[in-house]
């Protein structure tokens, strides 16, 4: 309270209220919710103190809106034409562009298990059921061919609003495209971004998995979904 007394511009009532404000802030800072989430700690630990270049994720955010619209149009055109024709199939960004299209079929049912899965799979790889862990409910699915590859997508919704698309590309791993890499549990994940979107790409059971989410979903949250088992 001593320093508050020194501030002559505050009335007694205001000083008392300011003291309450100080207590409120102190209590909030001491609350468990104000601790850094474990996923953030893991991300920082994975990044490590080794020097590295500034992330392309951040640089891509400064794209001018007009340029971004043109870029999105080009991506859509390439996807519509069926990809690049490369032996390695489509790029992860092409897959993400398709994955975020509206669902064309009902959501697959939950089939339980540990960890819980959905009744949708590509080869041996089943789509996760995030409902119990994160409140993300499967809201629909779609099947496409992109660059000659079968792409199966399950859309998830959070609180009926935020939509996240999880796509699995059948066949051998595809090109990941630009981004920055994060290693978790010995596995490599590539994070990339386009205006308003974030994407993480990785290989699992020999297939390429892509999760596309709005940029309101943090990188750490995206990584929770990608590493969920």
């Amino acid at each position: 309270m001593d320093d508050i007394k020194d501030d002559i511009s505050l009335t007694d009532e205001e000083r008392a209220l300011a003291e309450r404000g100080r207590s409120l802030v102190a209590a909030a800072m001491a609350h468990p919710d104000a601790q850094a989430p474990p996923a953030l700690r893991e991300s920082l630990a994975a990044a490590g103190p080794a020097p590295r270049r500034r992330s392309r994720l951040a640089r891509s955010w400064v794209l001018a809106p007009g340029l971004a619209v043109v870029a999105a149009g080009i991506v859509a055109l390439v996807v519509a034409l069926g990809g690049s024709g490369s032996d390695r199939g489509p790029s992860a960004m092409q897959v993400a562009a398709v994955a975020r299209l509206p669902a064309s079929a009902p959501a697959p049912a939950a089939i339980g298990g540990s960890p819980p899965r959905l009744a949708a799979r590509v080869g041996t790889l089943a789509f996760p059921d995030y409902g119990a862990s994160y409140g993300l409910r499967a809201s629909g699915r779609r099947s496409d061919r992109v660059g000659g590859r079968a792409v199966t997508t399950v859309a998830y919704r959070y609180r009926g609003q935020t939509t996240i698309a999880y796509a699995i590309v059948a066949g051998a791993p595809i090109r990941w495209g630009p981004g920055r890499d994060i290693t978790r549990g010995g596995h490599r994940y590539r994070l990339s971004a386009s205006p308003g979107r974030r994407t993480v790409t990785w290989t699992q059971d020999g297939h390429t998995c892509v999760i596309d989410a709005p940029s309101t979903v943090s990188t750490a949250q995206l990584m929770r979904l990608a590493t969920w088992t």
Partner: protein
Amino acid sequence: MIERGRILDAASLGDHVDRLYRAAWALCGSRADAEDLVQETFARVLAKPRRVQGESDLAYLLQALRNTFVSSRRAASLRIVAVEAPAGFEPTDPSGSRRPAEALEVREVFTLIAGLGENFRDALVAVDVVGLSYGEAAKMLGVKEATITSRVHRARLEVARGMERADTGVLMNEGRHG
């Protein structure tokens, strides 16, 4: 005489994660954005060896966090805004024992701090959120110590008033929870 300073100890960055996360949350008003801000700050700081000129590591990192916040906000104003709901998603509380009202109040405090005027917010974040001394905060923000004292008090006052309004449901009605 030119002060050469010392090299920031990158290995000790982990000691400051909690404080920087709280500072980031108080700047952004959103936990998802706070996580991104801390990650981006660490990525920038770790990109090359950093020389600390007199201030503590924590003060240096807070300055880096604030710079990253300002530049990311500038970049955000140039990018297309996502049309989706601003809410991210949070994992189900594994403990199940926390009182929702308490957690809500914590969020309200952070939301209120983020909504303060920039000068008041930065002073409060430096002193009450991160725990810098008034002198360190003044040096970091380039103002007199007395100015910091005044701003911190005003900021606390605004937070208390905001919480009083929240108690009457004002914040809920305005949908300002992040």
